[in-house]
């Protein structure tokens, strides 16, 4: 039996700019011109309750954020070596994304306090695709 491959994303027209940005090692997000908040994942309108404006723009984000929550996966996708961290980062400008953590070989809860400052990393998967990963900002 072959090991199932890592699932890879297939961009849609609405998300293409985000994926193209990652290839250039830029974090391209969208923000709402009406309420000024950034959001994730990409779509051509503001998803926040109380706003929902269709007046939005792309910008290059700082690539900083905070660890919102995570699990340390011990029984997970066969394409991944365990343990690995599935983390959600709250980005400084707004929006939350799922990611893996880089720069952590032996993840423990003690080493990963919720709220920790994070910065983006870029993982070049192949010529056509770069995925985001995030690392703890060293204090």
């Amino acid at each position, binding site marked *: 039996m072959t090991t199932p491959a*890592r*699932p*890879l*994303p*297939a*961009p*849609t027209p609405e*998300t293409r700019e985000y994926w193209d940005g990652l290839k250039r090692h830029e974090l391209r997000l969208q923000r709402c011109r009406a309420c000024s908040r950034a959001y*994730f*994942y990409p779509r051509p309108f503001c998803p926040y309750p109380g706003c929902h404006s269709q007046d939005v723009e792309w910008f290059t984000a700082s690539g900083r954020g905070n660890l*919102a*929550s*995570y*699990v*340390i*996966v*011990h*029984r*997970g*996708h066969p*394409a*991944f070596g365990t*343990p*690995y961290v*599935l983390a*959600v980062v709250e980005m400084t400008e707004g929006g*939350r*994304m*799922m*990611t*893996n953590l880089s720069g952590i070989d032996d993840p423990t*809860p003690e080493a*990963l*306090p*919720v*709220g920790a400052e994070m910065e983006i990393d870029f993982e070049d998967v192949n010529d056509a695709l770069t*995925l985001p990963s995030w690392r703890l900002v060293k204090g």
Partner: protein
Amino acid sequence: MFDSRELSHKVAIVGAAETDTVGVLPNHSVLQLHAESAFNALRDAGLTLDDVDGLATAGVSPAALTEYLGIMPRWLDGTAVGGGSFLMHVGHAVAAIAAGYADVVLVTHGESGRSRVGAAGPGRTDSTPGGQFDAPFGTFGPPTMFSVPIAAHMARYGTTEEHLAAVSVATRQWATMNPRAMMRDPITIDDVLASRLIAWPLRLLNCCLVTDGGGALVLVSEARARDFPKPPVWVLGRGEAVQHTNISQMWDFTEWTAASRITGPEAFRMADLDHSAIDHLMLYDAFSHTPIYAMEALGFVKEGDGGPWFAEMRSAPGGVLPVNTNGGGLSYTHTGMYGMFAIQEAVRQLRGEAAAQVDGVQTSLVHAPGGMFSATATLILGNQ
């Protein structure tokens, strides 16, 4: 504007049953699990398939089930948002029956979660939001996704792995009294903490079972509800909401916002009851933390007090508020969309026919998620 309170106590569950057995059923296809449940629930009500004129189901399409059963219902509901869908179906059936859209509604569940017989495979998902933005990082089934919010709850409220373990221990205590439960040996906090890690902070004994089985319900209007072999179980209140589908997009990792804002308040308002009137709870336990979040969101305890509440064994046999008296998804059965089994146990308790019967149950609140904290559905049922 219509007022949902006018529909409280207007429709009753008059038939309720599960498949003959639950657990490992390799000789049943998904559709046959639905059908066996339907036959059993209709027999429980003294009715036949020919009496059914409304059909609600999830997991398979109402069309597929209509063909398989050989019926032609005049009202359909295929709301499919995960394990809590059947609670929503009950709420929808109340409105449909009150509107005259159907007289006898059959709600069915069947799932070959363990044996995978006659189950459709997953389709292409790599261009969906989840396929693009969550899956590439190694999400691998509910244990790796439903679990993501817990660390935030722990950080904010001091919820501990021992609290999570206590939910499993208390639930197992109920299962020891249920001969149909898959897991019936008592366990301790230490047993849970010594079981292997699945996705920290969840260990094996914090995770639900994976089984085959089904269940079905028959609902009719107040006008006929007392004419059946079993006493009616009234639908007193209901609420439903959905807030996201991918766990990374949950509004607040420390709170089940849609349940606290919408489904709990709506169900209580419709039932015109307060928390002190609830005798029994069924809180869908896909994992140990799900009932903790539900207790808090529904207002039975304040935010952050869910873990300590369970750690004091208040939900266990002899506790102040029995929770998951069938043994839950953790120890009784969990086909994948467990919500139907939560309703079934509430009905059994309200009829006085549960394996681990609690004395004097007059009201039961059933709550279930759909997906990973995505949907929330609440039912308040009563026998008075």
